[in-house]
């Protein structure tokens, strides 16, 4: 079968089906004739819409639709020839058609010169930013309350932000590296986190898309760091007047052998001090699920710190992410008490989040690292509305207005952060 016009993952999908068919005692060739796949067939020449003023948009769209239909005619005719009862969907904004075809039919369609590529239409599990912000009711805050994070400085303590990414254009207003690697060496992780907070892309829009970012590079581009890099980074967040700091990182008792008896290790101490100095510190809980062995805890550090907002992860269906670290944290109810404090404090969307990555594109990542910047973004919205709110007040407000979830407090704390709820509620007096 000619496969040069078939997308590689479509070829491997067909091969997988053939292997399954063989395992069931069927001839692999039967897949070529009988098994159908949803595919999109693109024309070798792309069509461009005219650049028009808004009042001429509809006319230009009709014109494009007509030109696309005409261009796609040979492909549609071939489709009707190889699969007469075929339902074909012709696209307008891109010169392509979608249909359900067997591999044998794909081969026949691929024979004509007009076909550039046949790609599989597979349900990929991706939560784009426009979905995840809906889950926590951010668009209502933008549209109804006109809050977008404007004027709020959010420090991103991470592997470095690609300030040249189109979605982050003009966002980074200050930067420094404490990681021993130049600040102009950005990382994918930091760029993704920054996009979730403040991307100004039309589709993948950040939670607080008009907030300003302070790029504090505390990790190498590959995500490696030392505790003192982070402690120094928190100090820089204070010195550079950040109102919010996001830390999608942490030292694990399980993986790094980190020791913290009562949320009082140097990382927790520094994070709590940054909060005392006016920075709302938002930290990822960790991706340890409930792996902890005897004498260990799953919540990372400084996520265990008392004054920070520690964030677990859920998916867009508001189900607990299987990796999200289960509490409690290392903090004790009182000195020497055997009772540990509940962590995480709340949860955010953290499964298959599509946000900005190096090179100007977007990609899906999962982790409490992705949940934390959603909450940092909501904190920025709150601080736009209440610039004098202390971190402890912001934390309490976000906790009080969470959407309750049917999970144990040690899994998702008070529940799922809810931007609209937080912005409609009066500030607590704590």
């Amino acid at each position, binding site marked *: 079968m000619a496969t040069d016009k078939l997308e590689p993952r479509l070829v491997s999908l067909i091969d997988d089906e053939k292997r399954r068919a063989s395992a069931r005692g069927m001839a692999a060739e039967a897949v070529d004739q009988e098994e159908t796949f949803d595919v999109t067939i693109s024309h070798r020449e792309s069509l461009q819409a005219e650049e028009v003023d808004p009042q001429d948009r509809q006319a230009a769209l009709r014109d494009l639709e007509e030109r696309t239909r005409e261009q796609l005619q040979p492909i549609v005719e071939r489709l009707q020839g190889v699969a007469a009862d075929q339902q074909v969907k012709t696209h307008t904004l891109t010169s392509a058609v979608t249909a359900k075809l067997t591999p044998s039919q794909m081969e026949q369609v691929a024979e004509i010169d007009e076909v550039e590529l046949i790609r599989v239409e597979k349900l990929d599990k991706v939560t784009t930013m426009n979905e995840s912000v809906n889950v926590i009711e951010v668009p209502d805050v933008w549209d109804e309350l006109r809050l977008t994070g404007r004027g709020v400085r959010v420090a991103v303590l*991470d*592997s470095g932000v690609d300030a040249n990414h189109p979605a982050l254009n003009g966002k980074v207003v200050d930067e420094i590296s404490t990681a021993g690697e130049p600040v102009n060496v950005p990382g994918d*992780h930091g760029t993704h986190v920054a996009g979730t907070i403040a991307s100004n892309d039309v589709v993948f829009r950040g939670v607080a898309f008009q907030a300003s970012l302070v790029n504090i590079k505390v*990790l*190498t581009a*590959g*995500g*490696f*760091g*030392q*505790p*003192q890099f982070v*402690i*120094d980074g*928190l*100090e820089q967040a*204070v*010195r550079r007047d950040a109102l919010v700091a996001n830390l*999608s*990182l*942490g*030292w*694990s008792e399980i993986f*790094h*052998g*980190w*020791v913290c008896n009562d949320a*009082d*290790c*140097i*990382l927790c*101490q*520094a994070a709590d*001090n*940054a909060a*005392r*100095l*006016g920075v709302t510190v938002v930290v*990822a*809980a*960790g*991706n340890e699920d409930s792996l902890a062995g005897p004498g260990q805890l799953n919540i*990372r550090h400084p996520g265990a710190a008392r004054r920070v907002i520690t964030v677990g992860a859920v998916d867009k269906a508001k189900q607990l992410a299987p990796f999200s670290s289960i509490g409690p944290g290392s903090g004790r109810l009182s000195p020497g008490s055997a009772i540990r404090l509940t962590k995480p404090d709340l949860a955010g969307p953290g499964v298959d989040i599509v946000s900005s990555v190096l090179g100007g594109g977007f990609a899906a990542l999962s*982790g*409490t*690292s992705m949940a*934390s910047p959603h909450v940092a973004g909501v904190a920025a919205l709150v601080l736009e509305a209440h610039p004098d709110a202390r971190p402890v007040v912001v934390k309490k407000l976000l906790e009080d207005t969470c959407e309750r979830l049917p999970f144990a407090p040690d899994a998702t704390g008070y529940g799922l952060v809810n931007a609209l709820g937080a912005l409609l509620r009066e500030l607590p007096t704590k």
Partner: protein
Amino acid sequence: MTNGRVDPSVIQELDRLEARGRPDPRAPVIIELVEPARVSGEGSPRRQLARLEEQVHELQQRLLERLHDLGVTDPPRQMVLANGIAAELTRGQVMAISTHPDVRRIHLAREERVTT
């Protein structure tokens, strides 16, 4: 043998480096002091930070002197928001400094992947 103030990961790292054949290797550590860094809560954040820096550096002075006596010549990195000092120490230096009354714990500060 340790006195309970040294994280097991520090000893493991020194063992690992020795097993690689390095004579008397040095491990990157953070020495956490007994007295925590305390923010006063008065004045602007910058003023509070300046006061904290002054206070913490004063608290760290005796330990810095002891490190110098132990032969640590590279200037250790002094933290501010947490009362800690970062340095690279040999096993002998780790053991010696861990008995100092100002020391609470000694953590490993090796560069590790920590993204979540």
